């Protein structure tokens, strides 16, 4: 990795959906750069291709045109350094919490003892000590989210790709988990590409907020969030700068109609 190249660099990206009858364009002329350790959120109306963008970066979807580079290298297949957090957690229902969290370590071939020590540390960190041998079904939505986050932290990727990860949670849990996640992230300081439709969440978490237009999704505007870190995830909402950003981004998004 050269010092000059950004963590993620997307140039003139175009993605087509190969539906049977129409070749509709999901994303068009998307340009986005994420620096090392930067937290970037993408907001936009539903169906604007936010999730598609994430799928392309994770190598699960092939772009029609344009380039995606991680650390200056064009991606081919699924890159090693990405950690995906899915909207629905994607936990294995038949595995216990320990097994779910140690999955990426097992795939990496880490010795069992080290795996368990690492899982222990992570579960302690997210406050799930004592739930090691539960199955995902037995946990609340917020707890399952913590498990999913621990699993991604266990993988320790260079860039976190998060697809509306807090979407299915109720408002209260959402703030709580967001707060916890922000704290954990500030400790590891890796790059994040965060997809959400919640403007407040985006501002509270991010260094930069990117607004996408309706289909075909393009980048409409970028806002730098100059709020100091570490931030209190909830109280930051009463900051005048926060209010101003919120107003601007909201205005930008509502132009879409």
């Amino acid at each position, binding site marked *: 990795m050269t010092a000059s190249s950004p963590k993620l660099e997307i140039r003139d990206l175009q993605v087509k959906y190969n539906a049977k009858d129409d070749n509709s364009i999901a994303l068009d002329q998307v340009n986005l750069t994420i620096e090392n350790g930067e937290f970037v959120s993408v907001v936009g109306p539903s169906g604007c291709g936010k999730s598609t963008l994430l799928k392309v970066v994770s190598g699960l979807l092939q772009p029609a045109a344009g380039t995606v580079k991680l650390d200056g290298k064009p991606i081919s297949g*699924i890159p*090693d350094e990405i950690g995906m957090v899915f909207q629905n957690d*994607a936990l294995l*229902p038949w595995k216990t919490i320990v097994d779910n969290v140690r999955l990426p370590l097992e795939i990496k071939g880490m010795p069992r003892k080290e795996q368990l020590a690492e899982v222990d540390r992570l579960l302690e960190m997210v406050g799930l000590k004592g739930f090691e041998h539960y199955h995902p079904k037995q946990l609340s939505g917020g707890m399952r989210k913590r498990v999913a986050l621990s699993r991604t932290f266990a993988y320790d990727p260079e860039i976190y790709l998060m697809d509306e990860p807090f979407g299915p949670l109720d408002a209260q849990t959402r703030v709580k988990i967001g707060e916890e996640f922000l704290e954990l992230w500030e400790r590891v300081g890796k790059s994040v590409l965060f997809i959400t439709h919640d403007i407040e969440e985006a501002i509270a978490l991010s260094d930069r907020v990117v607004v996408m237009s309706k289909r075909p999704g393009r980048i409409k505007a970028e806002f730098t969030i100059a709020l100091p870190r570490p931030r209190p995830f909830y109280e930051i909402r009463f900051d005048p700068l926060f209010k101003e950003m919120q107003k601007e981004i909201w205005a930008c998004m509502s132009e879409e109609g």
Partner: protein
Amino acid sequence: MSVTMNKESAPSSTAPAPITNSKGSQPSQFTIWAGRIVLGVIILGLWEFLSGRAFNQFWLSKPSLIIERIGKMAMNGDLWFHVSVTLYESITGLIIGMVGGILIGILVAYSGVFDKWVYPYIMAIYSLPRVSLAPLFIVWFGIGMTSKTMMVVAMVIFVAFYNAYEGIKNIDKDLMDMMDTYKAGRWHKLRWVVLPSITVWILTSLRLNIGMALIGSVIAELVGANRGLGYYITHSSGLLDTTGIFTGLVLIMLIAIILEQFVIQVEKRLLKYR
């Protein structure tokens, strides 16, 4: 004639007759089992009562005579002599057919375009009445147990195939994507996602196949054998021994119920996470 009778006896394995142990501690469990037992007693009671009164006992025999026959067979060794063979053929065929069907199902489901080529042919073969192949199986595999076991395999393999195949097509795409982003290899995907995902489907096919396996072995025995419950049934019908025919059928039913209970216990253990 006895072929159609066998077919009727198979579905009844899903509604256990009043013989299983009721360990119900909850009232709902109690109600279920009490209802089942009462229903069974009524049916058997009517059969017992009406036989010889409303109709000639020669046509339908009656429960007391069947129980008496089973007792007699147990004493003189005939019971185990016939049951063991049928059980052996059914279980061996069931295992071979299940494992084979599941493996083929997994391979076909992951074979890309090959899947599209072979699938209609597999379904075409499935629609054949495999029962009609029984005489041919005896020509191919001899009069011994092999031909019966192969008949069982032919009966169960399709359901096993179809369930494994459908199970794979129904795997949660997000889970596979998740495994992909962690760069999981084939082995890890199989162990952590594929096999656990299709377990529900496999257990369903196993339950359905218990009945199919018994039908398969008994039909093959009807066509040509000198041992087994199918042989016992044909032998009895040759002697116009109605009680013998019904005894054979009742024994098949009992075996189905016991095997199904066994699968239910396995299911409880494997699907505890739900």
